[in-house]
């Protein structure tokens, strides 16, 4: 049995299969394990539920979601989510509604962090970019359509 556990831990190095395993391997960093369920969910609602526990998010004008109206190259779509005007921002998730796996990235904030995230994402076709912000225990979202003229996922 011991040997089994050891093997499992060794294999978990990259995949971070279970939080406990990841904890054993990297005791110096306080890392939440990679949310496999959320990053394999095929629907936006499913992904949001896996990340935040619920998918009932109110549309909020306080979230500034910056994304191009037309992306010439879907493989590099700049997306900026600015929720710094909101108080008590705990986390931000960015989703692309029609991607094979909609959830693109999540950011959890603590300490000195400001509720702001900017990144570049891949989009296979014209779809909505959704930003979900958890602030003060409640979920808020903002959506914007991005027209993609060249596919991003097909290479």
């Amino acid at each position, binding site marked *: 049995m011991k040997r089994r556990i050891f093997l499992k831990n060794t294999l978990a*190095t*990259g*995949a*971070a299969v279970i939080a406990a395993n990841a904890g054993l391997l990297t005791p110096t*960093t*306080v*890392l*939440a394990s*990679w*949310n496999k369920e959320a*990053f394999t969910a095929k629907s936006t609602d499913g992904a949001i539920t896996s990340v935040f526990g619920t998918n009932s998010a109110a549309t909020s004008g306080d979230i500034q979601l910056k994304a191009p109206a037309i992306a010439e190259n879907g*493989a*590099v*779509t*700049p997306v*900026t989510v600015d929720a*710094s005007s909101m108080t008590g921002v705990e986390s931000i998730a960015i989703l*692309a509604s029609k*991607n*094979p*796996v909609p*959830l*693109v*990235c*999540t*950011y*959890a*904030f*603590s*300490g*000195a*962090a*400001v509720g*702001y*995230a*900017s*990144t*570049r*994402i*891949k*989009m296979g076709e014209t779809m909505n970019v959704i930003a979900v912000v958890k602030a003060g225990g409640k979920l808020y979202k903002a959506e914007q359509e991005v027209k993609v003229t060249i596919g991003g*996922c*097909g*290479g």
Partner: protein
Amino acid sequence: MSIKIRMRGKSKGGVAEVKALIKHPMESGVRMNKKTGKPFPALFIDTVTITVNGAAAIDSQWSGAVSSNPYMAIKVNANAGDTIALALTDNSGASGTQEITLK
């Protein structure tokens, strides 16, 4: 194998914007290899953490849908002279770290 990261940060009025460029293929696992008809295996950065003076600030998780050679920008409450450290790992176990002192 360590992942190369370029990082820059500047503090203005107590809020610092930190930008990072990471060299990584970010293979989603969906893209097809036309020669073999099979998809390229997924290889992407899955966790990124940022600390300010050693204290955890941002814990980020990514999927393969983040663009290759990812760019990220974040903001933290920090002043000039503070140390910002970025640590990341990909799903193959490769990792990279970078540390800067804010200007």
